[in-house]
């Protein structure tokens, strides 16, 4: 009785009833995983995994798929419900709302990281003078504008830009292949890659466990196809990362790739084709910026949809403003410098993300099971 009443109220105030296709959701998952990973993780991965670093995404991706199975099972119990509604249905309104709000803060903090990585990149490469806040406001404004148009717009925008990311990115990497050397992989598989993989647990959290945000899209996916598309998306993201690492090792070598701040950027910067094609790194900058934008977009969508579903809001713009202010503020204050960020991620990212991606969903799943068992007992 209580159950159906609450869920009825939610469906009535869900913003629109947008439907996105499974393929669109798949693309969202891939771009979400690539997002900031190309800025932050590449250099660390190569430094740790040496010439065998390209194996690391395989393991991390497998772990990400395993984690996503928990979310998918949880979602099976609440078809048509998003991450914001499930805790309330599972644990009741007061406790459930508190957990939903935790997720809201989680999204804001993730967005803070994403935006800060973005401004670090731009300040470090092409726009050294521009203050970070300008980038945050710019990205959040456009993201909020997109989200306000509904979930279909978010998915279509992503679907529309993906070919413009995919083809230029791989094309410029192929142009760089003049400097390719197989020697850089030798001796192959002679590093302690398994030990390294287990040591670098932060890679499991970021980016793979962060894909939990995509659970906010689950109710909107055509024919309940969320699970398979998410798994495929994580797999494709991991394979892309592996390929990118492979190319960077072959093109830059382990020594340089683990020393440079933005190896993906440098590799394209050094492309030089017959004195005509030179300095084409702005292409890669734009690709990376759009990828980051997609990640921001997903997080803004997640945060806003969550507030909308928990508080059944009527006017939207104050919430966009509030979300933007929160995200920009967390971007400004998330870390003092990248050193602090690295230290944090090597110690705590895994624990932090596990709490949100595995512990809470696990508790929710357990609570649901118990509740179902009790209800069955009463019926008898």
């Amino acid at each position, binding site marked *: 009785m209580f159950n159906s009443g609450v869920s009825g109220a939610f469906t009535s105030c869900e913003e629109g009833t947008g439907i996105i296709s499974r393929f669109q959701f798949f693309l969202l998952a891939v771009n979400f995983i690539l997002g900031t990973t190309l800025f932050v993780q590449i250099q660390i991965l190569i430094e740790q995994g040496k010439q065998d670093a390209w194996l690391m995404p395989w393991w991390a991706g497998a772990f990400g798929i395993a984690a996503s199975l928990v979310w998918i099972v949880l979602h099976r119990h609440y078809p048509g419900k998003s991450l914001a509604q499930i805790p309330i249905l599972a644990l009741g309104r007061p406790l459930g709302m508190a957990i939903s709000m935790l997720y809201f803060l989680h999204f804001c903090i993730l967005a803070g990281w994403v935006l800060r990585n973005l401004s670090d990149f731009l300040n470090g490469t092409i726009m050294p003078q521009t203050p970070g806040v300008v980038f945050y406001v710019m990205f959040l404004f456009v993201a909020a504008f997109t989200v306000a148009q509904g979930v279909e717009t978010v998915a279509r925008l992503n679907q529309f830009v993906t070919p413009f990311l995919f083809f230029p990115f791989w094309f410029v990497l192929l142009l760089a292949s003049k400097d390719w050397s197989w020697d850089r992989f030798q*001796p192959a598989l002679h590093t302690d890659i398994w030990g390294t993989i287990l040591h670098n647990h932060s890679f499991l959290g970021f980016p793979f466990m962060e894909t939990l945000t995509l659970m906010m899209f689950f109710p909107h996916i055509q024919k309940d196809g969320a699970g398979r598309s998410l798994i495929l998306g994580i797999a494709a993201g991991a394979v892309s990362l592996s390929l990118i690492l492979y190319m960077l090792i072959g093109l*830059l070598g382990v020594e340089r790739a683990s020393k440079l701040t933005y190896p993906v950027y440098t590799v394209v910067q*050094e492309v030089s084709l017959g004195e005509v094609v030179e300095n084409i790194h702005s292409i890669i900058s734009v690709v990376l910026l759009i990828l980051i934008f997609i990640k921001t977009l997903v997080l803004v969508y997640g945060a806003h949809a969550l507030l909308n579903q928990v508080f059944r809001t009527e006017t939207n713009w104050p919430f966009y403003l509030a979300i933007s202010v929160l995200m920009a503020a967390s971007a400004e204050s998330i870390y003092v410098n990248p050193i602090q960020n690295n230290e944090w991620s090597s110690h705590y990212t895994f624990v932090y993300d596990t709490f949100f991606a595995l512990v809470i969903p696990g508790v929710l799943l357990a609570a649901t099971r118990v509740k179902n068992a009790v209800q069955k007992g009463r019926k008898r």
Partner: protein
Amino acid sequence: MGTSIASVLMSFFLTACWDKIEMNELALVSMVGMDSDPDTGQKTIYYQVVNPASSVSAKGSPGGDQAPVYTYEISGPSFGEIRSLAYEVLPRKLFVAHYKAIVVSQRAAEQGMRDIINFIEMQPNGRASVPMLVADGPLSPVMRTFTPLERVPADDVESRLKLLTRESLMVGKHIRLKDVDERMQQSRAVVLPIIRERLGNKPQDSGARASEINASIGNLQIEEGAVIQNYRMVGRLNDTDLIWYHLLVGDKGKQAKQFQVNGKRLTLEMEQVRFNRSATCRNNRPLVSIRMDLEISSRLASDYVPQSWNETAQLQKQVSQTITQELEDFYEKTKKKGWDLLEIRETVRSHLPRSGPNFLAGGDWNDVDVSIGVNVQFRRIGSIHKL
């Protein structure tokens, strides 16, 4: 309505007012010279800035008597600090993203180039894909030399290096800063071209340079090679040694060379078509074998051309023997000096990952056996008729 307000607002964000760059506010650096005084530790950077007023166009009087480039010399306690000190003399914003060559003074190279390489590599606009050269002797004359034909010295140097890589074996492909960086970190050796100012009364004014017929006087010259090991310049290779060195590391380029065959002098052009270097374990010792296929041609021969198949076979055999002998001599020479120019250590490390490190850790790479095999094929001829 909302959409139009949003689009107007978005357009404001696209102006990028903080990082706007105007072309005529930039000092476009074409070549960088880096020097370091070993006694005082004082660093000096020479920025060769393109003069926009001297239009380097094909026709007409090129911008009157204006110099095509201006060299700014800035000293300071560190390379980083020089970037701030530069504006004491420079009226425009430094733009280093498009320079074409880096010249390092010999004393800085001998002292160690680690900070020079890191300084450039660490900056996102540093451009590590440009060739590096070592200046013979002091740096300032090299940075203050006008070149004929190509008016901007950086273009001149870049073009010469390209031609030398393609048309000779005197300069190799791996002379870019990024190659030096990667190889130094792998404890391999690199050979960089040496640039010097030719003797003679140097024209100090670009007009005089342009009107002087003798292009050799006071021009720049690229010859010999500087051996860089562990970030330091440890010695030199002369032009003949450079040929053997580049053959032994697999560089492809044509090179004409005079050989003694049957007591006759014969100039042959050779080109490497295949190169293979591998390491195996033999008698509990690593054996590095280097195999190469060379194509020779008598295109540039003015003295003797074989007339029969027999003579050709004999020629091939003798040339192959001569080259093998020269390569072995070159290897012995470098071994004596302790230069791992044949990349023995790297080959053993990557081909014998299990047993290799023990050898390298236990002793030095001198214990490694090296076998060199040269296969010569006489393919192209200029004229078949007896000269």
